[in-house]
């Protein structure tokens, strides 16, 4: 506590210098800065991160984010299992948008193999990703409102999220840990009548977005709290390695879906909202607009999705159909080899990234050709964002920390892996 205060050389420190007390009556009142621990268990720290905050009154003089409370050894775990078995681990990275992690990982593996997946599978991946982008942004915007005392926007967001998660459950069988998709495509086609249901859900989500928008966007208190707080310049943001909505809020038009389109994103008509000031308000607005754009993408994708296979017809990569497994020796052998030995990914390394809800979700994969990953590294979008927090918030007030921490939307699971 005292060592970080760094008193000037001539000023006696009452804690360590005994002579300080001799002139106590003449001396000014000694002040000490206060160190408080926000987290690891604190209402404003999503997941479990600990912020060691040093306060001078209400002003933050120093802040030290401490991560690791959710560390699960993701990278090491992946080295011990087959490529397909990595999939459930990726669910737990950003648990708010598990499908994006699933698909990002699969995309990287497919790139390493050099595989083109069927068109319908690409559409389903877009649909799944955008659904989960919605849930992620809804949570972020809702929590921003909640932690500034506005409970209603949060519950509106939660209602929309629940509806979407119901659809996700129908699609994947799980609410959070979807483990959806397989190398080479998708393991399960869209359920019957699902698209109509999603259209309905999206209509309701749009209504709820209008409500959230009405409660927050022009709310004087909300604007005062968020505008010009948590500001970061575009240059600093790039230096820190920011991506995603937080970077776009600074005015940098960088969205991997547009810059380097993957899957079938270039077929859809959507805008990338770009902010200007890089403050909390812009990050909030960018997220709000991205949700509307996600809904646009979803509607287009669901209207134009083609029929066809959902996974490649290659028994070295995808499991053979069950009649083949039970009926033919080739089927049994392919099934056995895939399950026991895993997909034989050729040796090599690859970096591939997709636009996840919070930014560029990058995968650096190394394969030695033995059916298991040699190395899996994730470039989690939340990590650089959290790393810049001290830069943003030092010298600002403690109440500014809360909206800033909300709008950068750091997710414990992916930061700590």
């Amino acid at each position: 506590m005292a060592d970080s205060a760094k008193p000037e050389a001539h000023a006696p420190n009452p804690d360590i210098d005994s002579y300080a007390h001799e002139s106590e009556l003449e001396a000014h009142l000694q002040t000490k800065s206060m160190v408080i621990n926000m987290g690891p268990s604190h209402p404003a720290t999503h997941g479990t991160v600990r912020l060691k905050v040093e306060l001078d009154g209400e002003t933050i003089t120093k802040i030290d984010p401490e991560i690791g409370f959710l560390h699960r050894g993701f990278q090491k775990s992946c080295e011990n299992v087959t490529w397909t078995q990595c999939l459930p681990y990726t669910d737990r990275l950003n648990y708010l948008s598990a499908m994006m992690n699933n698909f990002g990982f699969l995309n990287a593996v497919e790139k390493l193999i050099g595989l083109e997946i069927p068109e319908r599978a690409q559409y389903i991946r877009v649909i799944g990703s955008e659904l989960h982008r919605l849930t992620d942004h809804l949570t972020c915007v809702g929590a921003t409102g909640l932690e500034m005392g506005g409970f209603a926007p949060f519950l509106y967001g939660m209602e929309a999220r629940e509806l979407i998660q119901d659809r996700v459950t129908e699609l994947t069988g799980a609410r959070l840990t979807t483990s959806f998709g397989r190398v080479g495509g998708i393991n399960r086609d869209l359920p019957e009548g699902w698209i109509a249901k999603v259209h309905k859900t999206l209509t309701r989500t749009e209504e709820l977005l209008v409500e959230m928008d009405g409660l927050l966007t022009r709310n004087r208190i909300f604007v005062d709290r968020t505008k010009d707080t948590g500001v970061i310049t575009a240059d600093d943001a790039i230096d820190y390695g920011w991506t995603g909505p937080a970077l776009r809020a600074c005015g940098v038009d960088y969205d991997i879906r547009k810059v380097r389109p993957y899957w079938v994103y270039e077929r859809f008509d959507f805008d990338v909202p770009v902010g200007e000031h890089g403050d909390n308000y812009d990050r909030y607005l960018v997220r709000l607009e991205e949700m509307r754009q996600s809904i646009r993408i979803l509607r287009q994708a669901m209207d134009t999705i083609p029929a066809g296979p959902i996974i490649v017809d290659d028994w070295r990569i995808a499991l053979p159909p069950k009649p083949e497994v039970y009926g033919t020796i080739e089927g049994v052998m392919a099934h056995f080899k895939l399950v026991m030995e895993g997909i034989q990914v050729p040796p090599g390394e690859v970096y591939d990234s997709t636009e996840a809800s919070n930014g560029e979700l990058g995968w650096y994969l190394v394969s030695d050709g033995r059916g298991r990953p040699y190395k899996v590294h994730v470039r989690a979008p939340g990590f650089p964002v959290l790393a810049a927090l001290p830069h943003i918030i030092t010298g600002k007030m403690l109440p500014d920390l809360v909206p800033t921490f909300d709008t950068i939307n750091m997710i414990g699971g992916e930061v700590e892996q």
Partner: protein
Amino acid sequence: MSRILTMLVAMATIVVALAGGVATAYLVGGFVEAHGFTGASRLTNIVFLMLVFVMIIATLLTLAERKWSAFMQDRVGPNRARLGIPGLKNRSLGGIPHIITDVLKMLTKEDFIPGMANRFLFNLGPLLAFAPVFALFAVVPAGPTVTVLGQKVDMVVATPDFGILYLFAIASLAVYGTALAGWSSNNKFALLGGVRASAQMISYEVALGLSLVGLFLTFSSVQLPALVGDVANALSPATGQGQYLWSTQVFGLDIGIPAWGFIIQPLGFIGFFVASFAETKRAPFDVPEGESEIIGYFVEYSGMKFGMFMISEFVEVVVLAGVTTALFFGGHNLPIFGEALANNAFMQEHGWVYGTILGTVFWLKVLFLIWVQLVIRWTFPRFRYDQIQSLGWKILLPVGLVNVFVTAALVLWDPSLRALGVVGILEIAVFVALTLSKKENSEAGAHGDAHGHDHGHAAPAGAHADPHPSAAGAH
């Protein structure tokens, strides 16, 4: 549909219960005056007003707040607790059993005192927070003075000469409880909360006092019964807020625009409402609690001590509504038909019926203002600590000062208060216009084109639109 029916039934029940309570209060008051000693009705008033009305409303508020917030947020609200009585076992009863479970929970929880806390002050904190707000209601008149059983009975606990100054004095004591609770817990979060609370409450007392000066000038009194006033009758002209600014007779009934505080003193009303809202420490002024930042000044309290803080908050809500009603909403006076009712022969003969009607009117107004507070509480996010200070010192204080001078000049120029009424109605029109224009702007701005979406950052209305966000919600 069933929800609407439930609400209608609940409203009817509330009106009947209020009328019953007020009638009982008047009759018992008259009885003890007649058979006891002079002034005995004041003692029963303590029981009825402060224990029965304020406490019961505050207790029910704990449920009403949760139900209403649920209503606003597309939820059902508390409905799980059941009474284990045959016939009621499977009914949620609108969540009423939750009140009992809450009380039982509070009473039976461990009363934890942190090891390093100052035990005496730690125990004193909740009491100091609770007692002052409870005592505030003593000077608020909750009904007219009527003759019951041949005795004059009024519906107020005390009518000291210094009137509303008592309110200021006692209200400022509440800050000690909060500050002590924050300091004595020996917890850094609680300390921050206590410091924030003391700064906020002390600075808003200035605005609070100033916002009422205009009202004192208008009615030349600081006593609440005089401010509330009475309607004209055969013996005396109307006084206080019982008088009309403009009135006419239709079929022998009087209608018109009454001289209520919020009409002749809209600025004073907004200033008072905002400032007293800040004093209650509820959202959007809940930075001392600030649950997502610093958890609050009562973070170390558990059990009934925490319950005392909570219930004192709800009592504050009731008292604030009561005081605002008395000061700015005509107290127990009816907006129209007041004179016709007062001069009705039956009403003059049976004073307690007249008292019951007007007393019920008072409590309905109180309930309305409580509802307004709930809506504000669940609509707005929280201010930042320094923004609260600048709202208090840079906006409310100057506005209050201007209001004092303008009011004084207008009262001097036109003692009939009509000039004041015209200015007041104009001010209200301006507020309504500002509020409405803000809405249009938000619709135009929010659905802009995706790419330059953020360029309308400083919307024209945003800059000047509303220095009193919570008050704008009240209109």
